[in-house]
């Protein structure tokens, strides 16, 4: 990553925090206390670092990696939130039934199910794109709401806990849970996320398929004509993989953090991860760093609400400002064109 990328990221973060502080002051909050709580909630202690920041960073990094893959391949997956829930649903369902299996098997089953579920959830947009030319921007987006409604249905119905009081599932079997770092709530999902980053880096920089993906993202016509690459399938595959990874993130969250399914399991990871991917310049290591940053922000937001009485959602404002500043910097550098392949039409284009 070039130096300028760092500078832009740091500047964007600063801008976001400034906007937050100004807004808080205007609203009568004590911005100093709020920002202080934000920091301590994220980095103030070993526990905060591991059990708040890193725990929240894991899904952001995972989904962010998947989105980096998709965006680089020219696919705009805005449905990671729904795919996350699909994975969580599958993970919960499997996790409730594998109690008799030894832990490695149980965890594998749970996570595999999550991956499959995520892939299945994005299969409809993939199909719509390949067959009917419906661009994934809308189709993935709409499926988010379906997934959330489905989750709500399940936790108030078939998956509801045995007492039938709360809208949540029973806890999953012990053997299906990811191992934790002793003394913390940090789970093995972090290792998965970091390994994923290394794998993606290798794919992008060394493999032929990774090169083809990048070519399709940067110049779909030339990739087809000069490279004889079937861009349709490459993009479809990238989209499918990103859905699978988002599903995995949902499974990891269930297997490592919540051990159960309930509504609002995701505080918007699928959308925040878009910012993470963008801020990380679609580079795997950048995504890790950006994921850590946003994980810190959201961890701190919780503390901010508890200690300074500032609503946690305010952190979305910071994230939005970060995205916009990065976009502006990117635009300034390129005078108009962006690195990501923009869909030329919103929803429909000629199939094939």
């Amino acid at each position, binding site marked *: 990553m070039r130096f300028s990328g760092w500078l832009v990221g740091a500047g964007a973060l600063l801008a976001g925090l400034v906007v937050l502080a100004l*807004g808080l002051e205007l*609203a*009568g909050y004590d911005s100093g206390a709020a920002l202080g709580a934000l920091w301590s909630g994220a980095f103030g202690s070993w526990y905060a670092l591991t059990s708040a920041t890193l725990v929240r960073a894991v899904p952001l990094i995972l989904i962010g990696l998947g989105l980096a893959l998709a965006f680089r391949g020219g696919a*705009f997956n*805005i449905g990671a939130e729904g795919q996350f829930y699909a994975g969580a649903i599958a993970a919960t369902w499997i996790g409730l039934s594998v109690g008799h299996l030894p832990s490695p098997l149980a965890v594998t089953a749970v996570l595999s199910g999550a991956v499959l579920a995520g892939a299945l959830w994005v299969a*409809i947009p993939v199909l*719509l794109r390949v*067959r*009917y030319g*419906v661009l994934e*921007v*809308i*189709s993935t*987006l*709409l*499926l*988010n*709401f*379906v997934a959330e*409604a*489905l989750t*709500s*249905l399940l936790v*108030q119905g078939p998956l509801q806990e045995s007492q039938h009081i709360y809208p949540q599932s029973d806890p999953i079997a012990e053997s299906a849970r990811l191992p934790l770092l002793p003394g913390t709530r940090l789970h093995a999902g972090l290792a998965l996320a970091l390994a994923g980053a290394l794998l993606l880096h290798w794919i992008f920089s060394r493999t032929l398929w990774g090169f083809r993906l990048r070519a399709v993202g940067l110049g779909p016509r030339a990739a087809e004509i000069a490279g004889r690459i079937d861009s349709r399938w490459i993009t479809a595959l990238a989209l499918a993989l990103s859905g699978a990874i988002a599903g995995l993130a949902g499974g990891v969250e269930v297997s490592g953090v919540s051990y159960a399914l309930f509504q609002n399991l995701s505080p*918007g990871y699928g*959308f*925040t991860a*878009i*910012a993470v991917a963008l801020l990380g310049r679609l580079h795997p290591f950048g995504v890790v760093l950006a994921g850590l940053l946003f994980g810190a922000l959201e961890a701190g937001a919780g503390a901010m609400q508890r200690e300074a009485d*500032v*609503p946690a*959602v*305010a*952190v*979305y*404002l*910071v*994230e*939005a*400002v970060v*995205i*916009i500043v990065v*976009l*502006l910097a990117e*635009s*300034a550098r390129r*005078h*108009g*064109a*962006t690195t*990501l392949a*923009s*869909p*030329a*039409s*919103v*929803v*429909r*284009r*000629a199939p094939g």
Partner: protein
Amino acid sequence: MDAMAVTEGFLAAAVRVATPLLLAATGETVAQRSGVMNLGLEGVMLTGALAAAVGAATWGPWAGAGSAVLAGMLLAGVFALVVIGARADQVIAGTAITLGAVGLTGTIYRLAFGATGAGLDLPTLAPLPVPGLSKLPVIGAAFFGQPAPTYLSLLAVPVVWWFLFRTKTGLALRATGEAASVARASGVRTRVVRAAATLAGGAFGGLAGATLVLAQVGTFAERMTAGRGYVAIAIVVLGRWHPVGVALASLGFGAAMALQFLFQTLGLDVPYQLFLMLPYALALLALAGVVGRVKAPADLGKS
């Protein structure tokens, strides 16, 4: 159960529910015809909803509607600055706008109305029955017994149609969305046109949010738009970027959303989440199966 009464009730509910969708989608149609796709529409609606709540609580329902329009335009203005001024990617910028709006409205709401915020009592816009017409069987209550925003939304359809297809400015706007470079060569100030269209979309979107609060739900809750802004964008596509098509599609969605009331009336015990899923699933099906080849404005989404 009187079938007539049930049908009347259902239609009236459908039109009432469709109104915010129609308003948002009409505004977005104008914006998209000029080449701008505003995924921040969801955030615009939400911001409008909050502004309406604040305005209504402070000065009354019409002030609430006015505040919503202004707030919608303001947010759309930010979006316009980023994607037209700085020529940044529209999809990501739109997503950022919605994200920021959720944060902003959530924070301001808690600040203005406290942490619980349950059952906020707002002065609302009462239905304004059209004398005579509202007594018509079946459609009377549905189309002529609604609050003011519904009449506004229905009126907007022919007005926007006439603007787009019978005026020079409308022609210039459509040219901007189809072939911006050609429009520029013909002397059209494409950036101004797009900015104006985006702001118009923001005004309509804000008003849509106000309608939701002041003429439907009666209160504000965080994230109350629940994806309606995105549904509006789907409606624009389904309506083929034509005001009349958009109106029909909006009505269809309103009906889908009102189905849950119908089922309740009929005493059918179906989990309400299925009705939540229905509009989105329908949108997907419709997008895939839209008859004939749908052609978006050729320069939509391009900087």
